[in-house]
């Protein structure tokens, strides 16, 4: 005990690193439940639905879901901080219009047009982030506003027309397959690279630990030296630029730049992120669950479409799944508190009991 200021040696008490076994830590998680459900639905669909297992089905499943996969990455991080970005689909539309205008009308090269569209995504995200992180406005209100604002700009720029005159080579890039008759589009590589980068940022970096701390307790994060405002700004900028990238993909894939491209996609993204186990209150979630969440919804849609069910039925099923997932989270949390209370006696009780009591007065 003589040298408290020095790093202690390993003498004395040691603690196990984990309170649960490896198997339970991996398997008994929300993320694993989503992955399991995804595999289940996938295997079931393959076995029972004609043509589901054909490479083409999978190929279109990926093509359709790539924008959602892309945007879900930064969205997960934004929601982990306890914020939300509803303007992503509008940024997709804005970026799509810019690519069309700058290439087709202004005659810029595709590279330059894409670069400027991405830059617009950075600016749009930075504007959201500035209002949320530095002005201190609630992100829900800010991004509802910019959802309308960015969509308005996009539709104002292009009106009702569509720009379709894009080079075939670029359009092919968006739909190219990895190898002959492979179900995997080349763009999936881009998604994979970004997924690895975001996984590193969120789960294997000091910055990522800060993201979770902000979501759990932003004041304590501030007292620990986390730059709360800058972290949030960074995440909104990332959300903006990745949405713009999704907009570029969207334009090339359908060969059409329109102001109303991807309308409503923000809710699809958020639904998938929440289904994947990210808490809407912040502080909880993991990227593998988010990816599984996107794919789960994608597989369900694809399977039900192949079965000839209408979009309405599909939406009802996905809606029910989301509600069920929210309920299951609350149930699990309730079980956990009951167990914890049994295990630790009254220790964790005082504050909650006091709070409840006064509220019930």
């Amino acid at each position, binding site marked *: 005990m003589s040298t408290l*200021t020095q790093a202690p040696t390993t003498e004395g008490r040691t*603690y196990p*690193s984990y309170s649960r076994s490896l198997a339970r830590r991996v398997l008994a998680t929300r993320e694993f439940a989503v992955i399991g459900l995804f595999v289940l639905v996938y295997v079931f669909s393959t076995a029972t639905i004609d043509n589901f297992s054909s490479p083409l089905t999978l190929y279109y499943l990926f093509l359709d879901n790539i924008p959602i996969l892309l945007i879900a990455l930064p969205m997960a991080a934004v929601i982990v901080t306890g914020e939300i970005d509803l303007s992503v689909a509008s940024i997709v539309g804005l970026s799509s219009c810019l690519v069309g205008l700058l290439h087709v009308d202004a005659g810029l090269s595709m590279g330059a047009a894409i670069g400027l569209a991405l830059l617009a995504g950075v600016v749009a995200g930075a504007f959201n982030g500035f209002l949320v992180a530095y002005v201190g406005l609630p992100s829900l209100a800010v991004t509802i506003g910019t959802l309308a604002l960015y969509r308005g700009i996009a539709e104002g720029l292009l009106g009702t027309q569509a720009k379709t005159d894009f080079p075939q080579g670029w359009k092919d890039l968006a739909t190219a397959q990895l190898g002959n008759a492979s179900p995997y589009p080349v763009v999936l590589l881009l998604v994979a690279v970004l997924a690895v980068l975001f996984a590193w940022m969120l789960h294997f970096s000091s910055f990522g630990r800060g993201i979770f701390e902000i979501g759990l307790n932003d004041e*304590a994060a501030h007292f620990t030296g986390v730059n709360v405002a800058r972290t949030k700004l960074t995440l909104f900028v990332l959300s903006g630029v990745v949405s713009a990238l999704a907009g570029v993909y969207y334009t090339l894939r359908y060969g059409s730049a329109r102001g109303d491209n991807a309308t409503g996609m923000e809710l699809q993204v958020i639904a998938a992120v929440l289904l994947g186990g990210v808490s809407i209150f912040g502080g909880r979630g993991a990227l593998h669950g988010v990816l599984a969440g996107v794919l789960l919804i994608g597989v369900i849609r694809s399977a039900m479409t192949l079965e000839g069910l209408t979009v309405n039925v599909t939406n009802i099923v996905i809606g029910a799944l989301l509600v069920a997932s929210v309920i299951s989270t609350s149930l699990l949390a309730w079980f956990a508190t009951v167990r914890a209370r049994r*295990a630790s006696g009254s*220790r964790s009780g005082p504050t909650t009991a*006091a*709070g409840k*009591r006064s509220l019930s007065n």
Partner: protein
Amino acid sequence: MAAATLVLEDVSKSFGAVRALRSASLTVQPGSIHALVGENGAGKSTLIKIVAGVHRRDGGVFELNGEAADFSSTAESKAAGVAVIYQEPTLFPDLDVSENIFMGRQPGSTLRIDKQRMYAEAAALFERLGVAIDPRRPAKGLSIADQQILEIAKAISLDASLLIMDEPTAALSGVEVERLFTVARQLRDEGRGIVFISHRFEEVFDLCDTVSVMRDGEYVSTETIAETSVEAIVAKMVGREVAELFPKTPAEIGDVVLDVQGLTSPGQFRDVTFQVRAGEIVGLAGLVGAGRSEIARAVFGVDGYSAGRVSLNGAAVAKQNPRSAISAGIAFIPEDRRKQGLVTEGSVARNVAGVIRTGLSRLGVLTSRAENRAAGPWAAKLEVKTSALDMRAATMSGGNQQKVVIAKWLVTQPKLLIIDEPTRGIDVGTKSEVHRLLSDLAGQGMAILMISSELPEVLGMADRVLVVCEGRITADIARDEATPENVMHAATHRDGHVAGATHSAAAGSADSQEVTA
């Protein structure tokens, strides 16, 4: 003689495998103030919750005013005349004070609330308690002391025969404590029974008639205050003799580490100048709200300041930038553990490694393994009680949480440790551990700035006491000259000159010029 207000005998309660109460007993007579003391985890809270109707007992006798009682809800307990006042009452902030008191039983008919009558009744209650609170003001913005008064007013309006106060003074300043005590004595004289739970012995001895001690879920003893002493009670609480609660050992005082010059923040504090030297514990005393915590927050950079300078070992520390303060070698343990000190939903390991984690990355990759390896030995050094490093801090007791916060900052190997209310709400055993630790750290040459509302703690631990009053440092008193009287005098008199003050502010700044030149 009337029946006892409260009788608990041989009460037991288990939560799963954990026996929170083995055989707890407590008898409170009407017209008395009964102190209930014990270390954290001794079972006080569980016992109170049984009386309040939060938990049901497994066995034993429970009588209220001579009648057998068994509550399955807080409403039943309230209807039977039990009122519990918590450390931090939760009110409806947007409703006015009277509405909070009469919530759910407002005077008037079913369709209409008779506001005038409600205000009049509230005003009458406040007058009876001798406090000046406007019945029409919203509850938002009331001090914690006033919120407690509100709860007491509510209890009186319900004509509660038993009032339980669970650490009511933890967040109060001296004047507020006095006012609360006046009210408590008045209620006692009206013949009500009062149970007072506190970790502060001077208050127990000041206020109470009788004291019961609990340890490990069991009844230990009941004595009248006049026939016992602090040492005897502490010995009973911990089951062993505690040699000294405040074991500051003299340390060699070195060079100036922290130098604060003319720090000013409008409305918070003004022209604050002081130094802390290596090996020195400087106590920052004063009333709650005098600006002590605000000064500490500004030094560390979580808040800004409009004028002045902070330097550490002669190098300026950037303002409003905790990161820069951390890299300069400042550690700050804030007063509110759960909100500011740690992420309660985070694991022990991530909390302990929270400040240094950037340095734990390899090639930019930070793993849980690296965090665990860094956190484990420090948790062990501070004897944190946890079953594994991934346990959430929220599951731990206050004392253990405080150890986690201290570990988190000692990991950074700071030159200056700022600690705000080092032992608030933690039990006697851990308290003396923390005191010994601070003493050891100073002995190894760390500069320590300690803010405390507990005068004995300040007087026992500090080499030098700086007293803050209304945002200004009004006295700088050396350890030998510091007495409760002169510290309290300086804390309540802004321009008062204090007998025995050795350093004046002018002498302080002369020192600093020497250092910064």
